[in-house]
């Protein structure tokens, strides 16, 4: 048997969703260690892998875990651990799809927690911001000549900066849980809240934005040129005032000139 097939057979025995005959075929390949049976050997590795992924999720989503309760979160995390893709050796990039997974659960199980998906997105973006690259100083000197070509000038946002439009008061929910304050009686939002998750120094922050700032940052994130940013009346009226502030904060961290 070639090595690739061998390794696939081993993983078929370890994966929880393996068919019984596949698992039995794997068991035949084993010489169990200690006093374990072949089935128990495979269970040790299955448990190791599950535990590592669940611990990673617990570290990234502590407020979701608090709200759901440890036992419930652990059950969900164990299911997620073997359903979601895990395509990177770096565990710090694992678990980003949990928000979508919880959103699917919401529809069936957690009707009293309609904000869960948005909360998970906030926690994921917080986690990503923590590990983002540091922001280099804005290149003001070369910017003045680049700004002469607004049709080719595109801004870049700081690494790890994320934007969220939320229907529910997840920022307030999240902050109160982290501060161990009473999370009861958080009023519903009258309108959407717009959030920017960013990291000015060593610790990420969540900042509430006005809609215009959110729209501007979103357009920059999607690659609009300086000329295109001035397309809409709302942005063109505020661009001259907002852009320097966003640059000074480090949220707009650089620019590029597109080729002619």
């Amino acid at each position: 048997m070639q090595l690739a097939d061998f390794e696939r057979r081993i993983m078929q025995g370890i994966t929880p969703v393996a068919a019984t005959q596949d698992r039995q075929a794997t068991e035949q390949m084993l010489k169990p260690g200690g006093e374990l049976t072949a089935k128990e050997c495979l269970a040790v590795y299955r448990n190791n892998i599950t535990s590592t992924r669940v611990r990673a999720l617990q570290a990234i989503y502590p407020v979701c875990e608090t709200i759901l309760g440890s036992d419930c979160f652990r059950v969900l995390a164990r299911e997620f651990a073997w359903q979601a893709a895990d395509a990177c050796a770096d565990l710090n990039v694992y678990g980003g799809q949990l928000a979508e997974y919880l959103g699917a659960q919401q529809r069936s199980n957690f009707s009293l927690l309609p904000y869960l998906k948005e909360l998970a997105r906030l926690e994921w973006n917080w986690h990503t911001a923590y590990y983002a690259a540091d922001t280099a100083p804005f290149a003001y000197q070369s910017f003045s000549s680049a700004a002469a070509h607004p049709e080719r000038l595109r801004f870049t946002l700081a690494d790890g900066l994320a934007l969220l439009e939320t229907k529910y008061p997840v920022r307030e929910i999240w902050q109160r849980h982290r501060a161990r304050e009473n999370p009861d009686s958080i009023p519903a939002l009258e309108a959407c809240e717009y959030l920017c998750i960013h990291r000015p120094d060593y610790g990420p922050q969540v900042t509430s934005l006005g809609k215009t700032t959110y729209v501007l940052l979103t357009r920059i994130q999607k690659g609009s040129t300086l000329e295109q940013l001035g397309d809409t009346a709302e942005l063109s009226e505020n661009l001259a005032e907002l852009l320097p502030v966003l640059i000074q904060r480090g949220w707009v961290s650089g620019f590029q000139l597109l080729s002619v």
Partner: protein
Amino acid sequence: MSTQPLNTLRPGNRAEGRITGTGIGLRSPHIREVLDTQPDVPWFEILTDNHTAAGGRTAAELMAIRECYPITFHCVGLSLGSSDPLDQGYLDTLKTMHARYEPAWISDHLCFSSLDGTHYHDLLPLPFTEEAVEHVARRIGFVQEFLGQRILVENVSSYMAYTHSVLSEAEFLAAVSETADCDLLLDINNIYVNEFNHGLSGIDYLDAIPLRRVREIHLGGFEDKGAFLLDAHNHAVSKPVWALYRECIKRIPGTPTLIEWDNDIPGFSILQQEAETARRIAAEQSAAQNGA
């Protein structure tokens, strides 16, 4: 606990010096304490995969540690035994980190931890076959060429062996290291765990591997599950592991040794006590050999 700003720490000349004596595996709960108190530890081993962040606190703390101490990198993501292609993204990150932090060496495990594009974050044992020797040696060769240096390959503990295997574990480790021309990181706890789980002889193991290739020794603690020993790295080093270490250091005196504790991490002073025990055993063996 002190929260001395990272940019006011003892200024730099980057810590030089060879890796000698007994070091400690540095884990997140201890980083601030180490930076604040600057304990007398000759070197630290860093879990590379915990410090891949491009910026922020994690990167700044590692840089501060590096300014004060020599370090080595211990990886878990190379998946040297996998039949998947080597992860070029991971290799690129490793090379960048190597240039930035200048570890004395880089190590990873003789196992596979990924397959068909999925990573499992566990150390899955390989079949001890000639095909696997050639395959792993080829990949180690590529990694060494890419990084521009030899790497250390560590023996892993396991809870299953395979009917396909035609070599012993020690023969397999020896063949891989000789074929790849790589160095070894010898984990004494893992040898003992496999001694218990698979009935092999730790002493025979030591005598079957090319000890001249061992550049580092790991010592850690297993969890006794009754039916088997689990390599949980969550206990102090056990008596039989200390005994096997004594046999090992007798054979390769002066080999740098590392105390490894990854889970249920105790206070830093406990790790220092473990390191002191290792130093005492190494010194006793050295004295016995000099007196002989």
